[in-house]
């Protein structure tokens, strides 16, 4: 026990104290142990992360690609107008052979046409809209829900935690795709239900991560400090806990978007997503199943668009994770 007690501080504090008396601004004359950190003014952890991210070439290219396809999605009608075909226009003269088969890439149809003579380029462009919309919307919904539930479970603990954690267990034990298909078959397919179904099955994963993080943050002394100042639960949860969760949540969001996009494409592929004739990458690939042997371009372009998009989001997600938490990243890669 004596080790505790001998911590030397009795060595005449009275002498040093007066010399170091400091109501002057810090750094203005205090000891060397308290250096004034000079020129750099308040660079936030986010700015540092952004600087790191900018050095990651793969992530920056991916970000560029994501910006590009977002523009494509936003400008889809304009692009279609420039190309000269609508997403459901059937070109009966140049777009289909006499046998009723798709026509390959040509100057009239850069990406070729599908089995109904529709321009694949225009349809891929329009498909971007659905993929991004469903991907981003369902992810945001899932993250919002996961954060709320995880935060509540981790922060309040006890009964609240037991109930919410059990709920998350149940959702995570659902056969994901199977149940989604069942839901869609009962309540009909469409954009809205796709978003809802995808969000419903992904929020629990976010919730679990947020809960775990909250549990450890809750024990931090600054939470106790906030409580001793008289802060209410809501204020502590959103002002003190939430900012500390943002890093993992942002990483998870970027990595969840490609999962949601693939999920949407899978639903569409199985004929349970957005209703035809609205083009999506998934239903284009589904339509192409009977034609891939004679028209490679039919599955190729929507497949490529899908793969590049998910790849870009995954690469960006990796980059963001490395930037926000360098330790958890790809350890030896530069």
């Amino acid at each position, binding site marked *: 026990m004596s080790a505790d*007690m001998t911590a030397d501080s009795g060595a005449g504090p009275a002498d040093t104290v007066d010399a170091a008396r*400091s109501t002057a601004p810090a750094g203005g004359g205090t000891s060397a142990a308290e250096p004034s950190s000079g020129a750099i003014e308040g660079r936030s*952890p986010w700015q540092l992360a952004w600087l790191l991210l900018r050095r990651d070439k793969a992530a920056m290219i991916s970000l560029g690609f994501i910006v590009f396809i977002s523009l494509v999605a936003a400008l889809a009608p304009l692009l279609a107008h420039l190309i000269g075909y609508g997403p459901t226009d059937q070109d009966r003269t140049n777009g289909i052979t006499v046998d009723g088969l798709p026509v390959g890439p040509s100057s009239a149809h850069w990406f070729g046409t599908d089995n109904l003579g529709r321009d694949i380029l225009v349809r891929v462009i329009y498909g971007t809209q659905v993929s991004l919309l469903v991907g981003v919307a369902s992810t945001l919904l899932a993250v919002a829900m996961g954060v709320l539930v995880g935060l509540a479970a981790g922060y309040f603990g006890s009964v609240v935690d037991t109930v919410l954690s059990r709920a998350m267990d149940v959702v995570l034990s659902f056969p994901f795709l199977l149940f989604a298909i069942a839901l869609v078959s009962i309540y009909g397919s469409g954009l809205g239900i796709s978003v809802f179904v995808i969000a419903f099955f992904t929020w629990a994963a976010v919730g679990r991560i947020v809960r775990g993080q909250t549990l450890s943050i809750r024990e931090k002394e600054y939470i106790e400090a906030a409580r001793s100042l008289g802060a209410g639960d809501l204020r502590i949860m959103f002002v003190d806990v939430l900012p500390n969760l943002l890093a993992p949540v942002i990483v998870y969001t970027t990595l969840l978007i490609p999962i949601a996009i693939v999920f949407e494409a899978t639903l569409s592929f199985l004929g349970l997503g957005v209703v035809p004739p609205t083009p999506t990458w998934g239903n284009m690939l589904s339509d192409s199943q009977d034609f891939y042997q004679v028209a490679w371009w039919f599955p190729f372009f929507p497949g490529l668009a899908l793969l590049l998009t998910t790849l870009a989001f995954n690469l960006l997600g990796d980059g963001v994770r490395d930037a926000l938490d360098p330790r958890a990243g790809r350890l030896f890669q530069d």
Partner: protein
Amino acid sequence: MSDDTRANESGEALIEVRAAVKHFPIKQGVIVKREVGRVHAVEGVSLAVRRGETLGLVGETGCGKSTLARCVTRLHQLTSGQILFEGQDITGLSRSQVRPYRRRMQMIFQDPYGSLNPRRRVGSIIGDPFAIHGEGERDERKPKVQELMELVGLNPEHYNRFPAEFSGGQRQRIGVARALALKPSLIVADEPVSALDVSIQAQIINLLDDLQQEFGLTYLFISHDLSVVRHVSDRIAVMYLGQVVELADSEELHGRPRHPYTNALLSAASVADPDQAAARQRIVLTGDVPSPVAPPSGCRFHPRCPKAQQICVEQVPALKARSGDPDTHLTACHFPVEPGEDLTRVTATIPEEERAE
């Protein structure tokens, strides 16, 4: 601490703790959690902190002093007992009822790294009390916060920095500024300097001293380090296993420690004067601090006490003034140490199984 605060010695109690008990249940179970035991963190503590004074609370890690502090500031709910703030019983108040009192008593925490939210800017951390108690608009707060920063010796231009950009001592100043924001009457400082370098400790202690004089603050100052406490406190309470074993004026306690435990603490603490240090015998206690889950019977110190006798195993000694002591010097011991007595030469006369090995 200083002569003008000493004048308040007989002043009324700003905060008073009466027979405070805090137990933490230990739970276990498959589905339904059963209580299988209790940690007896605080066991019947009565204390009063007078307006304007600094009361030091010393004890080893785990003796319940931090728990007591958290009970006083109502971060923990007492198991039984009372807490009075300016004579008002605040023990049973709900969270919203206790809010007005929170403005009047603030805490400074031990860990300058853990007690500041790493993701928030210093300005917003120090401005937190204003925001929480709805004082001033957002833009009115900034000058107030900067004024506080200046007061505690921080550069107000660092308003937008993050805690990570400050050193340990500077961070503790941030914690002090936050505690000071609402002009509280009582500041409970839970080991405010023990995480800092020795040279920085002195600065923070001095800052606290200056602030006390300027604003007439009352401190409940907690530390495991008797020499730090001696320097800042008007009175000192020594805690052992959840109980106060000795309470006296700072100089009195150092000059005439009566409880064997206090004697042991003092002999372990380093002494500035080498002559005195050489003259003093170190009292080495046997064994470890017993578990607060199953504290010893009678006097809780008996398994380690060199003076323990049978009565110490059976009866809890009262905390009261012992013969020859002033009324302000209270000791909870059946056999208080006499001045000049050499504790290294006595041996306990209690059965072997009652003693710590």
